[in-house]
């Protein structure tokens, strides 16, 4: 007994030696263990950007259990995190062509900011930006988050899928996030990543151009007066710096435009790709380095010595990465002729808008033409219970340069979710739902369906 007692005492002493003395209120926390969780849902939306938010709200409002996984800290994607808070064109030739949940949110954000809508009845001519709605980005982020919560959507920030495998009549998606690893079992999967990441993880082919459109880091500058600038000299100095290699050719095509617009959508970052952490890190670093380099240079010029960065987005916004190999690929010809398909689920209206190293010269559609998006272009070839929305839509590069714009992505988001909802309800895959059912559901929720 004595020996036992002595050992116990020794144990107590050694514990006392290794346990830190806790101050009042402190709790000793052991090493963190990744929390593993299994969730089930009707519909899983991957990507809380322009299209994903609309898809999630549509699914939630249609009564489906819905989870939305977003790898950032805020919803809205390009519109909010990317800072491109002018979401494209909702009206064409005097009529609204994209409505529904996306427009509802735009309207609400506009009203809350006391903004005024452009006059959509006046043709925009070659200045399509006349019909752009300018949003307060942070406000829009709050509005859409509130709508998701109100629709019962379960939001999971800071998570990204790492594995997607078929599971019973649907998918099992493994996500990792901050201190979490989650298996989400769903019936319908909607890929709104903008890069077709979920489609790729699920084992389907993607398409990509050898050279993709550049990305843009949005920012605002100030601290100078345009009236005081010797623009000719600034242009000459700027061009000389490019020729010397002090500035990178093509990053800012027009220094006057950069200064006149005080930043905004004026920068081009070649090959910007948001698909992986690595590629997006490169795009972000390139975008910020470009701005810093240009800022330092401009501050050496007369009239610009007080130039300051007033605001800058957290990440470089990306225009083009991967598109799905879909049942039907929308062609440039389809787009510019305004082809309406038997399975058109939404409209898209924007000039062909391909950015390259020369800048961009938008090619406007002929009067009365409005393109449309067939359901088949949202579905990867050979897939079941899987659909995409957003710029990954199956299309050729020129058609995609117009389809990628946010308003069109919103229309696609609602349509993709409605197809997923019906597929879930009817025990089908999205390609099998009837257009009459799909049109009815979309129109009940305010969407505009070609031929509807």
């Amino acid at each position, binding site marked *: 007994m004595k020996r036992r007692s002595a050992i116990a005492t020794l144990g107590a002493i050694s514990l006392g030696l290794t346990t830190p003395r806790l101050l009042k209120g402190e709790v000793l926390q052991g090493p963190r263990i990744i929390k593993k969780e299994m969730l089930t849902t009707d519909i899983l939306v991957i990507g809380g950007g322009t299209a994903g938010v609309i898809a999630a709200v549509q699914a*939630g*409002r*249609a*009564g489906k259990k819905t989870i939305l996984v977003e790898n950032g800290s805020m919803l809205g994607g390009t519109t909010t995190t990317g800072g491109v808070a002018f979401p494209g064109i909702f*009206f064409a030739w*005097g*009529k*609204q062509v994209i*409505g*529904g*949940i996306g*427009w*509802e949110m735009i*309207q609400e954000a506009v009203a809350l900011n006391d903004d005024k*809508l452009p*006059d*959509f*009845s*006046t043709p925009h001519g*070659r*200045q399509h930006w*006349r019909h752009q709605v300018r949003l307060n980005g942070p406000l829009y982020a709050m509005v859409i988050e509130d709508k998701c919560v109100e*629709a*019962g959507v379960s939001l999971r920030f800071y998570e990204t899928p790492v594995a997607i495998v078929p599971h019973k009549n649907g998918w099992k998606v493994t996500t990792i996030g901050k201190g979490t690893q989650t298996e989400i079992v769903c019936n319908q999967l909607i890929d709104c990543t903008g890069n077709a990441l979920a489609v790729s993880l699920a084992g389907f082919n993607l398409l990509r151009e050898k050279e993709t459109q550049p990305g843009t880091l949005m920012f605002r500058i100030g601290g100078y007066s345009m009236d005081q600038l010797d*623009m*000719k000299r600034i242009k000459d100095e700027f061009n000389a710096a490019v020729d010397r290699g002090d500035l990178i050719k093509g990053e800012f095509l027009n220094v006057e435009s950069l200064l006149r617009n005080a930043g905004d959508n004026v920068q081009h970052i070649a090959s910007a790709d948001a698909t992986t952490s690595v590629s997006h890190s490169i795009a972000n670093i390139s975008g910020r380095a470009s701005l810093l380099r240009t800022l330092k240079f401009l501050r050496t010029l007369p009239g610009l010595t007080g130039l300051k960065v007033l605001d800058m987005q957290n990440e470089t916004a990306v225009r083009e990465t991967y598109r799905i190999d879909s049942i039907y690929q929308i062609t440039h010809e389809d787009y510019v002729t305004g082809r309406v398909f038997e399975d058109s689920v939404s409209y898209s209206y924007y000039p062909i808008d391909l950015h390259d190293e020369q800048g961009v010269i938008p090619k406007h559609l002929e009067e009365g033409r409005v393109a449309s998006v067939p359901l088949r272009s949202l579905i990867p070839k050979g897939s079941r219970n899987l659909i995409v929305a957003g710029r990954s839509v199956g299309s050729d590069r020129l058609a995609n340069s117009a389809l990628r714009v946010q308003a069109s992505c919103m229309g696609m988001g609602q349509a993709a979710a409605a197809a997923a909802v019906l597929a879930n309800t009817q025990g089908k895959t999205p390609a099998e739902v009837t257009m009459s059912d799909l049109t009815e559901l979309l*129109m*009940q*929720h*305010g969407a*505009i369906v070609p031929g509807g």
Partner: protein
Amino acid sequence: MVIRFLETTFIVLLFLYGTTSTFGQRSQETTRYFAPPTLPQNVSDVNKILIDTGEASTPKDTLFQLLTARGTPISYYRKINTEVCFDESCRLLRVNLYWNVTGRYLGFELPPAEFLSKAEHEPFHEQEYQQLHTILADSLSPIGDFDYQKLVPENTTPERVDGVTRPTSKDVLQYVVKGAVFTTHTMWNLVYGQTRKDVEHATEAALNPRFLLDILKSHDAWDRYWALDRMHMLPDVPPQVKDRVISFVCDSSYNLALHALTVLPKDWGEDSAAQQALWLTFDCVLPALKPKVMEKLSTYEKLNRSILLDIADRLPTMYGPVLNAALQCLRKYLPEEPEILQRVTALLDHNNPYIVKQIKKFLQEIPAND
């Protein structure tokens, strides 16, 4: 008196050409380009209004107000005599500019034997007059954003004005008549400058229900907006005006429909017929504006019971923001209206769990009837 009679007769004759469609006319004597007017141009009289132009060359000028036999304004014009100057060289611009009663550009005419010219005094061609007319009709033209001094590239050899052998800034070119950049800029700014406000003020002073109704009937969206924004200036709004305004809610122009809904006065809710007319728009209004119709009905002090019952009957077909707006519209009546409450409560059996959740939450917030 004789002079006034002759002047009026001249104006009347001028307008007998007719202005029912966009047209241009050039002859030996006059060059004139006009857009479709807000109101028929049956001119019987002319009134002269002294205005402060805010322009350096002619700080005071006369605005001619053209009137019907009833004395109602139908359009306005100014005889412009100004110099277009650049690089210390000037040319005289003589032109009569016309405005509609709403301040919208109507047209221009040149005095007899006068013509506009470009570089090297080359006269305008027909299509250049038409182009100028189109530019002047565009109230949103980017030409309005350019400073006079920025119309040509910096540090180019100074040449003569408009004479503009000097190159026009590339950004500006697409918005001006080539070779007449300063003339285009000057005329556009005259059309959309202080005189437009003077025109609007003069029309506002003459507003009455019949006059406003005539403007509301204009083919032009700008005119209709203008009239909607001035409804509040009438002490009483007759039923014909109310009908016209409410009919805009179903217009295919989103902006016009939204604007009509926005400016509909709350006190029209006291008019049972106006209430009913607004409710009927629910079936023809653009889908995105259906919630706005409900929201407007919600602002009325007391809704007709038949409308309340109609809304309640249609609840099962509503979703999203329309359903929300409809519930809010019914909210204050529910404690007193068991029949309507019953129809709301029936939605607890809806097959959409999201709607069931919405209804539960809504019902919890309804105040109990004491």
